[in-house]
C-alpha cells in the first residue's frame, strides 16, 4: 500500500499526501472551494468523503425504483369508480381545454380501470389486484396519487424526474445526493445504476449524469451479468497476482515521479489505482447472489445467474449494506399505449414481488428506517383510451402515482386526490420540484442551500421552485 516517500520531509508535500483522496483535478478543486452551498466544510481533494448534511438526516441512502415508460396509475393505485361508469363516454370539453396529448386526440373516449382494487392494511390503502405483494406492505408506504410533472414525452419526462429540468445538462438527483453527502464506500462507487426490462431508459446516460457537477458524482452503470462494472476483470492471461504486481510497479514508478515533480495529482492517482484494485475484488463479491440464503432468494424471486429486476433489487440491498449512497433501478417496460392489460400483468409479475421483498428485507435488517425507497415513473397515463381495442392509454403529466417508504417517510398514508376522472390532481398536488425538495429534506438538506455555482449562478436541483411536502414526513 502507498506510504509517503521518505524524502517528503517538507510540510507542504506531506499535507498534500495526506489530503489526497480520489477524484478531482486541481482546477476542479478550486471550483469546489468556491462553493458555499455545500453543507459541511469542503474537503476538496476527496470529493467523495462522507459529509454531514445541513440538518440531521432521516435518510442516509436511497434506492430509487424507476418505473420507466410511465406505469398506469389508473390500473395500479388511483382507483376511479366514476371512470368505470364513464367508460366509453367522451370527456367534458372543459376538462381537456388546452390539453396536449402525445399521441391521441385529447377528446378520445374515457377508458374505465381495467383491474379490480381492494383496501389493504390498517391504513386501508387502495391497491390494485395486480400488486398483491406490494399490497401486503401497504402500511409501510406513503402513496402519493397527486404527483404532477411538466413533461409528457419520455426523455424530457425522465430528465425532469431525475434532474428537475427537461433539458439536458443538469445533475441528477443521485449526483446531487453524492455531492452533498459523499460516499460511505471506499471500495465501490457511491452511485450505482441498473437497468432491466425491454429497453434502456429514454433519457440515456443523462438520467444519472453529473451535469455541471464534477464527473465523480455521476452514476456508474452496473449490470447483473458479466463484469458488473466496465473493465473490472483483468485481461485474459493476467491473474490476480500479476495484476497486483503490475499495480505495485505502477505505484512505485509513480512515487518516484511524485518525488521529482511534487504534484499531488500523482498521489491521487496512486490512491485511485489502489481503490480500483479493491473494487476488483469487492464488486464481484457484492454481485455474487449465490452467497444469499435460499429463503432470501425466494423472497425476492431471484434465480441466481439470471438478470432480472428482482436480482437488481437484491443487489441494491447488498450495495447499500456496503455503503453505496444511491442505487437506481430502471425498469423500462411501462409504456402501454396498447396491450395495456397483458403488459401490465406481465410487468407487475416481474416487479411486484421484488419491490415488496426489498421493503421487507430492509425492514428485517433494520435498514428501512434510514433508507429511502422510491417507486415511480416519469409521468402517468390518460384516463382516455388510446387505440381501437380499449386496451391502451397515452402519456399524462397532470396526475400520477408514486410511492415512498422508509427513511423518514410517514408510513401507511395515501396522500393527494385526483378528480373523479383521475385526470387532474386536485388536492395536495405534489410537483416534481416539491418531491425533490422533500426528498432532499429527508437526506438532511435544505433544497435551497444545496447549490453549485455554474455559469455565474448558484444552481440547485429544484431550480427556483420546490415546497416541502410536510404531510409526507414521519
Amino acid at each position, binding site marked *: 500500500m502507498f506510504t509517503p516517500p521518505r524524502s517528503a520531509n517538507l*510540510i*507542504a508535500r506531506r499535507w*498534500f499526501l495526506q*489530503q489526497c*483522496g*480520489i477524484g478531482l*483535478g*486541481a*482546477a476542479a*478543486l478550486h*471550483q469546489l*472551494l468556491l462553493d458555499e452551498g455545500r453543507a459541511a*466544510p469542503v474537503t*476538496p481533494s*476527496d470529493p467523495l468523503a462522507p459529509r454531514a448534511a445541513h440538518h440531521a438526516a432521516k435518510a442516509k441512502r436511497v434506492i430509487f425504483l424507476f418505473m420507466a415508460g410511465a406505469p398506469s396509475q389508473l390500473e395500479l393505485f388511483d382507483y376511479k369508480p366514476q371512470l368505470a361508469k364513464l367508460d366509453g363516454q367522451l370527456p367534458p370539453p372543459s376538462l381537456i381545454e388546452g390539453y*396536449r*396529448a*402525445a399521441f391521441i386526440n385529447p377528446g378520445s373516449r374515457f377508458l374505465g380501470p381495467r383491474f379490480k382494487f381492494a383496501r389493504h392494511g390498517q391504513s386501508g390503502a387502495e391497491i390494485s389486484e395486480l400488486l398483491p405483494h406490494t399490497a401486503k406492505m401497504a402500511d409501510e408506504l406513503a402513496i402519493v396519487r397527486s404527483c404532477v410533472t411538466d413533461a409528457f*414525452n*419520455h426523455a424530457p419526462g425522465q430528465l425532469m424526474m431525475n434532474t428537475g429540468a427537461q433539458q*439536458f445538462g443538469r445533475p441528477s438527483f443521485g449526483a446531487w445526493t453524492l455531492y452533498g453527502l459523499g460516499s460511505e464506500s471506499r471500495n465501490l462507487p457511491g452511485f450505482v445504476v441498473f*437497468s432491466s*426490462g425491454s429497453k434502456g*431508459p*429514454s433519457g*440515456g*446516460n443523462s438520467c444519472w449524469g453529473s451535469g455541471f457537477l*464534477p464527473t*465523480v458524482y455521476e452514476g456508474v*452503470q452496473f*449490470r447483473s451479468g458479466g463484469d458488473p*462494472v466496465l473493465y473490472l476483470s*483483468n485481461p*485474459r*492471461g*493476467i*491473474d490476480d497476482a*500479476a495484476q497486483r*504486481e*503490475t*499495480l505495485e*510497479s*505502477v505505484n512505485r*514508478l*509513480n512515487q*518516484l*515521479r511524485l518525488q*521529482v*515533480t*511534487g*504534484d499531488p*495529482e500523482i498521489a491521487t492517482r496512486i490512491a*485511485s*489505482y489502489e481503490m480500483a484494485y479493491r473494487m476488483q475484488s469487492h464488486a464481484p463479491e457484492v454481485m455474487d447472489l449465490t452467497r444469499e440464503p435460499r429463503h432470501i432468494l425466494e423472497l425476492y424471486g431471484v434465480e441466481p445467474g439470471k438478470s432480472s429486476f428482482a436480482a437488481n433489487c437484491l443487489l441494491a440491498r447488498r450495495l447499500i449494506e456496503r455503503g453505496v449512497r444511491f442505487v437506481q433501478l430502471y425498469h423500462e417496460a411501462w409504456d402501454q*399505449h396498447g396491450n395495456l392489460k397483458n403488459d401490465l400483468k406481465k410487468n407487475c409479475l416481474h416487479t411486484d414481488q421484488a419491490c415488496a421483498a426489498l421493503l421487507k428485507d430492509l425492514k428485517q435488517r433494520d435498514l428501512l428506517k434510514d433508507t429511502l425507497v422510491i417507486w415511480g415513473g416519469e409521468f402517468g397515463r390518460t384516463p382516455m383510451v388510446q387505440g*381501437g381495442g380499449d386496451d391502451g392509454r*397515452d*402519456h399524462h403529466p397532470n396526475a400520477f402515482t408514486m410511492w415512498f417508504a422508509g427513511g423518514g417517510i410517514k408510513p401507511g398514508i395515501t396522500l393527494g386526490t385526483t378528480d373523479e376522472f383521475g385526470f387532474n390532481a386536485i388536492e395536495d398536488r405534489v410537483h416534481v420540484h416539491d418531491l425533490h425538495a422533500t426528498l432532499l429534506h429527508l437526506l438532511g438538506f435544505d433544497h435551497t442551500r444545496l447549490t453549485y455555482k455554474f455559469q*455565474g*449562478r448558484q444552481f440547485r436541483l429544484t431550480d427556483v421552485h420546490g415546497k416541502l411536502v410536510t404531510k409526507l414526513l414521519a
Partner: protein
Amino acid sequence: MRSRCLLSLLVGLLVPLLAKAEGKPNVSFERDILPIFQSRCFSCHDGRKQTADYRLDVRSVAMKGGESGKPAIVPGKPDSSDLVRRILSDDAEIMMPPSGKRLSNEQITAIKRWIEAGADWPNALANEATGKVHWAFVLPSRPSVPNGTTWANNPIDRFIQERLTRENLQPSPRADRVTLVRRLYLDLLGLPPRPEEVDAFVHDSRPDAYERLVDQLLASPHFGERWGRLWLDAARYADSDGFEKDKPRFVWFYRDWVVRAINQDLPYDRFIIEQIAGDLLSPSPLTPLCSERDTRTQLLPSGQRGEETLQEQFVATGYLRNSMINEEGGIDPEQFRMEAMFDRMDAIGKGILGLTIQCAQCHSHKYDPLTQTDYYRMFAFLNNAHEANVTVYTPLEHAKRAELFRQMREIESELQHRKPDWRQAMAKWEQSVRGPLPQWTILRPRVHDESTGGQKYLLQADGSFLAQGYAPTKHRVHFEITTEAREITAFQLELLTDPNLPRGGPGRSIEGTGALSEFEVEWAPADAPTKKQRVKWKQATADVAMPVTPLKAIYDDKSNKKRLLGPIAFAIDGKDETAWGIDLDPGRRNQPRKAVFVAETPLRSDKGITLHLYLKQYHGGWNSDDNQNNNLGRLRLSLTATPDPVADPLPAAVRAILAKNDEDRTPGEVQTLFSYWRTTVAEWREANARIEALWKQHPEGTTQLILSERQEPRSTHLLKRGDFLKPGDRVEGGTPAFLHPFPEDAPRNRLGFARWLVDRRSPTTARAAVNRIWQAYFGIGLVSTSEDLGTQCEPPSHPELLDWLATEFLESGWEMKRLHRLIVTSATYQQSSRLTPELAIRDPQNHLLTRGPRLRVDAEVVRDIALSASGLLYPRLGGPSVYPPLPGHLLLPPASYGPKVWKEETGPDRYRRALYTFRFRSVPYPALQVFDAPNGDFACVKRPRSNTPLQALTSLNEPMFIECARGLAGRVLRDKSTDEERLIQAFRLCVARPPSSAELSILKDILERQRVRFQNQPAQAKELLAEGPAIDGSISRPEAAAWVAVARVLLNLDETITKE
C-alpha cells in the same frame, strides 16, 4: 484517505498568515478580498442595489463610504476604516453583514491586512470608468506592457512577471528540452513525440531550434485535429441525434471542416461567420443544393466549379445543427425545434460571446444587463432557417460528378451536332406536350391521429403534408375528407421535396426516398357516410418507372418475405410486399414525383363525396429506433373529374420552362429542356442509354445537417417563460444594447448577426477566445469561468494580460496560429512544472503562473498516446467516424434504449485517433467518457479533469489498452535487442525521457518477475497474446508476454498520460 484537506485553509487563511510570518504582506485583492465582498456584501451593495448609497463593486465608492459619511476604507489604516468597524461590531445598528453569519476570523483578518498593506485595488477591477459597467462589457483597450527582465521572451512574460514581483515570487526555471518537446507535441498535436523526434530537438543547437519546432508543429495537419477537438466541445459535436432514439447522424463533414479550417488558420472572425451563416455568404450562381423548389430534377446538374467551395461554406453551418433532435413517439416537432434553438443560443453565448445567456429565454438575466427581449431579438436572427439535411460529396466524388456531367454534356453536344435542326424538332415536340393538362383539385383532408404510428403529418400552406417527428417503419395513414365534388375519376399523389427532409426528400428514409406499399381509397356519398365502398383501380401511372428491385438491406424487417420496389403498379396490386419506388440512382433519387390513380368507374354523388384515403407505408425495416423508415416525406393529394388522366411525365421544372416564351429562356434552361426532350426521342435510344449508364456511376455522397435560409421569414415572438406555446410580443432581429452596436453595413439577418458576433468592437468575443486557448495550455483560464465573462465571473487573474492578448489577437487579424505561437514561445509557458514546497503554499493552483502546467491530458489524447506509443496509430485524417472496440452490451437494451449498430473495425481504422471515434450521445464511448470527454448534449467550453478508480480500471483492463500494450511490446522487441535498450525505448515511447536508474531497476525487476511468472504459466502467456497485434513468432511466448506486462505498466504511468 479520509483525512481532511487543508487546501481550503491554504487558500483562505494560510496565504496571508504565512506571508506575515515571512514578513511579506501580500494579500491579493482579487484572490482574497473580492470573493468576500462578492459572497457577503454584494447582495446589498453592488450595481443592482446600493443600500445606504454604498457599493463595494466600484473602487471609489467603496473607499469613500456611503450615507454615514464616514470613510469606509482608509488605505494603511484599518482602525480608521468604517468597514472594519462594522464587520467587527456586535451592535445590531451598525454591524455588517446585518444578519446571517458573521465574517469568519480569517476573512476579517484578511480584510484588515489588506487595508493595512495599502488597500491595493487594481485598476482593472475598479469598475471606475463607468461606475456601473462590468469590465468585460467594455471594449478591451491595449494596456501598456510592463517592463521586464531578460527572463521575458515576449510581452506575456512581462505581465506575468510584474504580478510575480508584486507577490515577491520568482518564475520557475525553464523546463529541460525533453520535457519541452513532449509538452509542445502534446499541446499542439495531441500526440507524443517519437524518440527520434525528441533527439532531433535535443541535439538541435541552433539558437532558434525551439521556434523552428513550434513552426513545424503548427504546420502539421495533426494540429487541426488537436485544436479542432476543443472547438468541437464548444460546438457540442456528436454523431447521433440524442434523446431516446439517438439515431446515428452523418455530420463528419462538419468535423472535418473544423479541422481543416484550423489547419489553414482561417481567421477566427471568418471561422465564426462561416459557421453561423456560411450559407448566406455568397449569393451563389449555382442552384443551392437545398432550394425549396428542387430544380435539379432528372436534368444535368451544373457540376460547375465552385460547387466545392460552396459546399464548404454551408457545411460550416453544421455548427448550429449540432443540436439534438427528438423523434420519440408523440412529440410536437415544433417544441423540439425550439429546444434546438435554445441550444444554439446557449452554444453561441458560451462558445463565442463568453456569456451565459440561457437564463434569458425565460426571464431577463438576473445579473447581467441582458433582457428577455434582447435574447429573443438575437434568437430571431437564427429563427428563419430550414433544418436542412443535404447531400455532400468528398473531393473525389466531386471530381467524379464533374466528369460524369462532362461526359453527359459531351454526348448531348454530339446529339445536337448530329441533328443540326434539333431546335425545330424540339419546338415541335413542345407543341405536342402543351395540350391541356387535367385540372387537379388539391385536398386538405384531416389526418386520423391513431393511424400515423406516431408520425406527425404537418399541413403546409400549399396543401401538402410534411412528415416530421417519430418515424415508424410501418404504418397506414388514414386521411378523411368530405368534398363537394360530385364526380371523381382519379386521384393524384405528389411527392414533394423539402429542405427539412433527409437529402431534401421527397421521402423520409435516410436516403431521402420513400415507398408506397399500397394506395387505397374508400368512398361514400356525403349524405350516407356509412355506405363505404372500396374504389377499384383501372390504372395507375407515374412520372418515374423504377425497375423491379429487391428492397435494400437497411430496410430489412426480418420477416424473410421477398419485398420489392418497382413501378407504380406495385401500389395497386393488393400486395403489401411490393411498393412503388422512386430510387433510380443516387444522382436522381431526391426529386419530386407524382402518381395518378384512375378509378375503374368514376365516383358519383349529388350530395358530395366522403373520401377515406389510406397510404400504406410498409417498406421500412424492423427497428423504428434506427434509421430504417422508408416513409413518404412530403405529399399532396388531389382529385380530378377529367377522364383517364395520366401522371404528367414532364418534371415541374421543365413545365416551368415551357411556360416561358422562347426569347425569355436562358441557355441553361434550353439545355435543361433538351436534356429532358432527348429522352423522348426514339432514334437516340443508344445515346440515352449511354447517359443512363453514366447516371448509374453517380457517387452516393453522404449527408450533412445544415441551416438554409427560408424564403418566407418566420415571425419570432418573445416566449413567456420560454414556453413555445406562450408567445408574447413579436420581436425583430436585434442585439443587446449593453454590448457593441450592430455593424451599420451589415444585413439584418443571420449573416449580419454573425458579423456582429465577431465585430472588432465586441468587448467579449476576443477575450473569450484567447481565454479559452489560454485555458487549454495552462489548465485554467485567465478568467477561470471561461463560459461566463459576465458580472458573475471570477475576476481575471491577470486582467491586463487578458486585454493585451485580446487586442493583440484583433490586431493580428484574428490569426489563431499566431496566438498559439505567442503563448508557446513565452518564457511563462516554458517554465518547469515542478511544484516546489514554497509554490505549493504560495500558488497552489498556479493562478499566478509561477510554473509550467502539469496536467492529465484530455480523454482523446490519453487514447492517442497509447496508440502512438504502441505504434498502432493509423494517422489518416478525416472521413467517416469509426468504431473501435466497445463492450457490446452497452448498445443493447436494457443498457441502451434501442439496439444500436456498431460494426467493430477490424482494419487499420480500429486504431484511428480518438477524434474519429463514433460518438453516440446516449451511449458515450466509455474509455473517453471516463476521462471526462463531454458527450455533446450541450456546449462545453471547460472540461472537468477528474482522477478516478474507473480511469485506472480502464487503462489497466480495457481491450484497446491491452492491444496497445501488445503493440508496444512487439515494437521494442523488434526494434531493439537487449533488455536494457528495449526497456529504455519503451519508456521513451511513453514519456519521451529515458528512465532514471531507479526507474530502470524497477522495470528490470518487473520484467524479471513476469518472465518467471509466464515461464511457469505458459497457458497464461498464450492467453495474454491471444488477440490483437501479433508479436514476432521467433520470440518465446512467455518472453513476449513478460514484455506485454511491462508495456502495460508503462502505459499506466501517471506521467504517460500527463503533460509535464
